[in-house]
């Protein structure tokens, strides 16, 4: 239990955001409730903070440039037309190819059930503090796992989603681009999968960012 005497205004100002999130334990919560009843200043801080959150969470706060929705719709329509037309051209022979790929993939999958996976790249590092339940994607034949939508996913056609924990268990290593925040600089520089020039670029970014 929190000592009621110990709940002063400074503690309130430190915890008020967590209090609003419902992220303080029951004892502290009760002590803070009590403080808000008696301290006018802190009650005003609470009311103002809640008011701020309420106002900014309102969709009316978001203004988009005129015609934004129309331009987005048009761009998506263009893209879909391109996809559809290329699909109809290729689909005739894609079906048997896809069937073969499925059979091959199935065999490999069956094998994978019995095999423990070492790290897929000897030169990469496993990354630090990657949230285990984070959704990541891997693609067939590649070594890295990625944040969905990363530019550096190879073989976009054959990807699957899984948790970071599962990906690491299967030996995948974090992408040096989208997962760079979990890597030491050293691991970025020593990554083997990408060209020297690209790694250099990453390193430059790091330096600028400091």
């Amino acid at each position, binding site marked *: 239990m929190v000592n009621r005497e110990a709940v002063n205004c400074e503690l309130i*100002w*430190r915890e*008020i*955001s*967590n209090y*609003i999130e419902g*992220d303080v334990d029951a004892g502290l919560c009760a002590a803070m409730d009590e403080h808000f009843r008696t301290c*006018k200043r802190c*009650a*005003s*801080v609470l*009311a*103002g*903070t*809640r*008011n*701020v*959150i*309420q*106002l*900014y*969470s*309102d*969709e*009316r*706060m*978001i*203004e*988009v*440039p005129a015609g*934004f*929705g129309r*331009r*987005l*719709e048009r*761009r*998506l*329509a263009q*893209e*879909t037309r391109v996809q559809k037309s290329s*699909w109809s051209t290729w689909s005739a022979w894609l079906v048997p190819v896809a069937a073969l790929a499925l059979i091959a993939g199935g065999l490999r999958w069956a094998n994978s059930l019995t095999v423990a996976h070492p790290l897929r790249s000897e030169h990469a590092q496993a990354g630090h*503090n990657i*949230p285990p339940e*984070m*959704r990541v*994607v891997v693609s067939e034949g590649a070594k890295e796992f990625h*944040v*969905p*939508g*990363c*530019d550096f996913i190879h073989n*976009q056609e054959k*990807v699957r*989603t899984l948790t970071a924990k599962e990906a690491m268990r299967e030996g995948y290593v974090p992408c040096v681009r989208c997962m760079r*925040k*979990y890597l030491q600089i050293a691991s970025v520089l020593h990554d083997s999968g990408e060209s020297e020039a690209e790694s250099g670029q990453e390193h*430059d*970014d790091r330096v*600028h*960012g400091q």
Partner: protein
Amino acid sequence: MAEPNVVLNNPAETTREQELIAAVQRGQTELFYELVRPYEKRVYAAAMAILRNETDAEDVAQEAMLKALANLRQFRAEAKFSTWLIQITVNEALMRRRRERTRMTEAIDEHRDDEGEYTPRDFADWREIPSEALERKEVRQKLADALASLDRKYREVFVLRDMEQLNIQETAETLGISVASVKTRLLRARLMLRDLLAGGWDGGWFSRLPFEKGTKPW
């Protein structure tokens, strides 16, 4: 306090959303715009919070939507679609900013959080700003200016948590910072915004609006 006017998880809408996702995944890509339309403003706001330039934000919003379309087959139902979409957008915007950084003149924030305590300003009591006030352009502008005046690290966390409705964990993952950092920055952002907006509601900026205190615009 009035209920905030945010997109909530209405069961009927969620079912419709699931149907749309399944349809697009089956190849009915022409339905994609209907699927993302409810979130298009939030996607734009997420890009804008990071890039601070309307043209770039719109471009990144479009790119992120195309990426979401291309990757929709990877989307799994256990995730929330809007969160997934916002995360793709933020990732896209961060990559764009990294590419452009060498050309940018804006100073790069340090990544360390301020350790010092923040003392909220002392106002006798808070004068509630009602949600209806957001109908007025001047009020929205005042709020937007206050948000824009925050340092980048505070602004980004605040936008993702309080405007985009990501939770603390998702905000941390999306920005690549720790949960503790998100909490510290969120606290600071919320208190600073409160201070920025408090001074004026009855005493300053609001009273200068048309129709207040008997002034007439004609």
